């Protein structure tokens, strides 16, 4: 739902980095999206095609790398994938866990010429 604002920020960030690198064209954007971020790739793609028009990023492809939600048990230190919102440690059934991955929302790199 918030992809409009997220995509606008992404376009600004990409154009800024491309400018710093004296690029004349952005060919590819490598994005990392955590499952918990709730950002829908298809929506980002759609807004990007509108927002990148007439910029050096127009026509760039976006590669999405999705990160699953991972938690670490504070009791037995096991790191496990959180499936279907089950935040209980599968090893020792501890309920005190901390998030170690899943809320990422960043641009890893851009490919330019």
């Amino acid at each position, binding site marked *: *739902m*918030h992809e*409009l*604002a*997220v995509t606008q*920020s*992404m376009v*600004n*960030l*990409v154009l800024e*980095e*491309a400018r710093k*690198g004296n*690029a004349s064209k952005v060919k590819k954007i490598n*994005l990392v999206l955590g499952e*918990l*971020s*709730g950002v829908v790739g298809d929506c980002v793609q759609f807004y990007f095609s509108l927002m990148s028009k007439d910029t050096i990023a127009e026509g760039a492809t976006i590669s999405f790398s999705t990160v699953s*939600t991972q938690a670490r048990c504070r009791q037995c230190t096991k790191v496990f994938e959180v499936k*279907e*919102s*089950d*935040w*209980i440690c599968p090893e020792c059934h501890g*309920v*005190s*866990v901390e*998030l170690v991955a899943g*809320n990422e*929302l*960043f*641009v*890893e*790199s*851009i*490919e*330019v*010429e």
Partner: protein
Amino acid sequence: MEIKVLKDILSANDQTAGRNRALLDLKEVTAFNIMSSPGSGKTSLILETIRVLKKQVRIGVIEGDIASTIDAQKVVQEKVPVVQINTGGECHLEAGQVGRALESLPLDKIDLLLIENVGNLVCPGEFRLGEHKKVLILSVPEGDDKIHKYPLLFSIADAIVISKTDLLPYARFDIPGFLKALKGMNRRAKIFQVSCTTREGIGEWAEWVRSSMSE
């Protein structure tokens, strides 16, 4: 050629949030970002908090809504400074909007700032505003399963308020099940059970708000 970026997409918002926070700290204002679905009782909880605390602390309010000034008009009745932000369609508040609202508030005369976010259980979680505490309200009629459906906000909240507890006899809300799921996801969140109709739990909640101000 590949350029390594490794920057958070919302870093521009985070920087603005950092500036808001610095201004709030300078003015010794503690800010709470209050989030929930539409209709969970954000405005009601804000009004009750004002009624309990306004003799002890100076309160200001920022109201965020897609449209209208209905909520701000309710807060004005309590005679505290309020700024309404209309996002015009955006489903969450952003740090820039809050920064502009701060310019319109008499920060020298405010100790506690209550920011009511746009009603939405998804997007507000991504956008820091410069707040000191994030509060999430879940009302009894919404159901205890929302923690599984919208985990992000539940995992980052500093306090979770279960509201409309006077409706527990009429709606299915498994409080022990909810608390167990929450404990797994977020063990530091303070939990409150309140009803703005019967005023049950309001005192305990308001006391937490007041004590968090001196942290």
